């Protein structure tokens, strides 16, 4: 086996970093809702794709892709609030949240297929073509935007949870909701807020998906395994975890692809996940 050249290696590491950032961005909301609300929200992926298709639609109508966030974020926030209201109303257990949100995923997938058909869709925008050159390496603007948003949102969430009153109250809820309520924290309202935020993060991730990837309804499931691996490796409820773990996974996938065949890449993340589950189940 011939070793790949340094440039190729650098380029693949860089693309690993960028795709890892997207894993982290997709995982952020998932990790927060699992770790803090105790809900495993499979529908997070379907929401992200719904966001991506909305971006595609609005951009097709002439809007700047970044400006679509002004529409998508509030709408998705409302969706997230509604979803948590439903879960709380029927006091859905952690495990059942997995099943209910799978049902939601199937419905959203069908909706997407009905509105946009099962054909592949690709958003055309001014961002798509833009790329820089740093030394011998090429960087595409959409990927850079993804990395920037993933880093910004992850750190903002981390800081908010750590330093603001609201964030501390949320951590108290995650620790023990009844006790938090007894100390005067409005558990209901804050949970709704957090769930809304998670869904809004899915919307942002959707924008990034639309910027860099070709969309098809069936692709929803393609991200599921890797992102779950990132979420679990990163530690549930830790806002920086998915980003760091996502980048580690992305980089190792890229290296696997560079040294062997691209088809072996999925083995990396899932093997990592299996090892972590078996060696440190207490982490989750």
């Amino acid at each position, binding site marked *: 086996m011939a070793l790949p050249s340094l440039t190729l290696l650098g380029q693949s590491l860089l693309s690993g970093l960028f795709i890892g950032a997207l894993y982290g961005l997709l995982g952020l909301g998932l990790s927060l809702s699992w770790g803090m609300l105790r809900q495993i929200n499979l529908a997070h992926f379907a929401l992200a794709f719904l966001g991506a298709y909305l971006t595609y639609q609005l951009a097709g109508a002439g809007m700047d892709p970044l400006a679509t966030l002004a529409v998508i974020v509030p709408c998705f926030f409302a969706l997230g609030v509604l979803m948590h209201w439903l879960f709380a109303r029927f006091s859905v257990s952690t495990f059942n949240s997995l099943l209910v949100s799978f049902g939601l995923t199937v419905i959203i997938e069908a*909706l997407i297929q009905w509105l946009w058909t099962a054909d592949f869709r690709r958003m055309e925008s001014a961002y798509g073509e833009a790329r820089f050159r740093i030394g011998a390496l090429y960087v595409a603007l959409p990927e850079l935007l993804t990395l920037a948003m993933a880093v910004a949102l992850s750190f903002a969430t981390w800081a908010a949870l750590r330093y603001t009153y609201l964030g501390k109250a949320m951590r108290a809820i995650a620790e023990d909701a009844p006790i938090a309520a007894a100390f005067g924290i409005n558990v209901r309202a804050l949970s709704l807020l957090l769930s809304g935020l998670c869904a809004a993060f899915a919307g942002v991730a959707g924008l990034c998906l639309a910027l860099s990837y070709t969309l098809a309804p069936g692709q929803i499931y393609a991200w599921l395994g890797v992102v779950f691996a990132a979420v679990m490796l990163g530690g549930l409820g830790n806002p920086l975890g998915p980003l760091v773990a996502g980048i580690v996974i992305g980089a190792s996938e890229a290296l696997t692809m560079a040294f062997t065949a691209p*088809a072996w890449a999925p*083995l990396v993340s899932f093997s990592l996940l299996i090892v972590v589950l078996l060696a440190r189940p207490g982490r989750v």
Partner: protein
Amino acid sequence: MRQRALAGFAAAGLTLSAVPFFGLPAFYESFLYLVFHWIVLAVSWNIFSGYSGYFSFGHGAFFGAGMYTTATLATKADVPFLWTLPAAALVAALFGIALGAVAFRVRRLRGELFALLTLAVTFVLATIVLNTPIDGGPGLVLSAVPLPAIGPSPSSTFYLLGLALALATLWIAREVQRSKLGTGLFAIHDDEDVAEVLGVPTYRYKLAAFGLSCGLAGVAGGIQAMFISYVTVGETFSIAVPLYVVLMSVLGGSRHWFGPAVGAAGVTALLYAFTAGDYAVAGRAAVGLILILVILFLPEGIFGQAVRALERRRVSVAPAIDAAELPAPTAAPPAEGKTLLEARGLSKAFRGVQALAGVDLEVRRGEILGLVGPNGSGKSTLINVVSGHFRPDSGRILFEGRDLAALEAHRIARTGLARTYQIPRPFAHLSVLENVALPAMFGRDALPRAEAESEARRWLAFTGLAAKAAALPGELNLHQRKFLELARALASRPGLLLLDEVFSGLTHVEIDDAIRLIRAIRAQGATIVFVEHVIRAVMELTDRIVVLSYGRVIAEGDPRAVMREPDVVAAYLGKPHA
């Protein structure tokens, strides 16, 4: 009962196998084959995941292992199709057992994590199959493999194969549910730790049920490989199999062997109805919506809910038992004074907290030993270590000459040692009677179910719960739950009974009841160790007490004398500043 069921299965099999000979269009036979196919997958999944509550999202992997085994053997080794099916079962079962042997060793790996682990395994397997000569990318074509002529046409052959496998799977699921294995799995579903402590070999049971479940999925995969005649990685290891299987079981009801079959037939028909009408997308959305509605409104599934409604109507009439007729003593009358249990240098630390720091303890045959000490002194840890819930870091526990320290909890239960929990931990989905019968089935005497139930009825009468035999534990109040806990510990007729704060939370009158009960238990020859804060009960009941503080024994002997020792007073009230 079994004869009647067998007759029913045979009648159903004969009737349904006559169908192809009426000249049904091939199309209907193929549709019915698909119904059978999904029944096999859903029912086999349920044997492990539904009964034990460990939801596997990897059923597609085991199904796929069977598919590729048949496809590989039939195309590359020219093995006749029917002979590949046992191989498909074996490969899938061994794969499942190998995975389970690793996964089930990890104690904290439960529920959601097992689900994700099995999901991940599916993708790993798919990657390996895709990248190795097993598939290599283009897929395997079975169209040249000869199909044995079991029925008058190929489609009827598949129909008959599917029918036979579906009936076999249903029969196995039924037998498992009614066997000890099934009882053990249902107990694992509700509270695995308690099941283990009551004598259920949880590790082996999970492994056995998982292997069975995977093997059946493997056979279904083998037949399906031949049916579709073109096997690809993308179609085989898709997310569809595990998700539809979960949906079907949850929809039908996962606590009954027949529930998933109802769900499978319903979902297959529904999906078909929509595909046939060109509304495949709407059909999938409908399936999603139904899943949500069922989980929110019918948590026991359609069939499960129906069974429950029927059971409510058929109020069980318990045979009247004279409360005075107490069970006979366990063994010969105790030779008092001899050592029954001896602990030497027992230590256990939890991340720096030394809960037990070298405890030496002796329990004499026939005595009631009180274990007292302030909160956090290690009393409950001691009970947890002796009963096998935790393994000690060091030290020995000799019980009738055997060292318990290295034994698994279910083996400890079989040596004749039983315990109660401070906060009652009944199996929430088993009736009060089933709760008490379980330790009799899995304890030292390993009684058959019927005898275990009559034994359980005796102990329910003894603890005054006879009228509640058919109720679920959730319907009992705290006092009754504590007594249920006691009845459950007694039902295995233990030689040594460990009671963890039986009296806490009870009223004065209830404590009087409980004291009478414990005296009656002792009168029959049991040796009792009890952890207690209610000093009145300690003084009235115990022959000797042992005082723990910071994981060490600081005093032992006659209750009245010991409670006056300055060290003991200091441990409870603090040292006076002189």
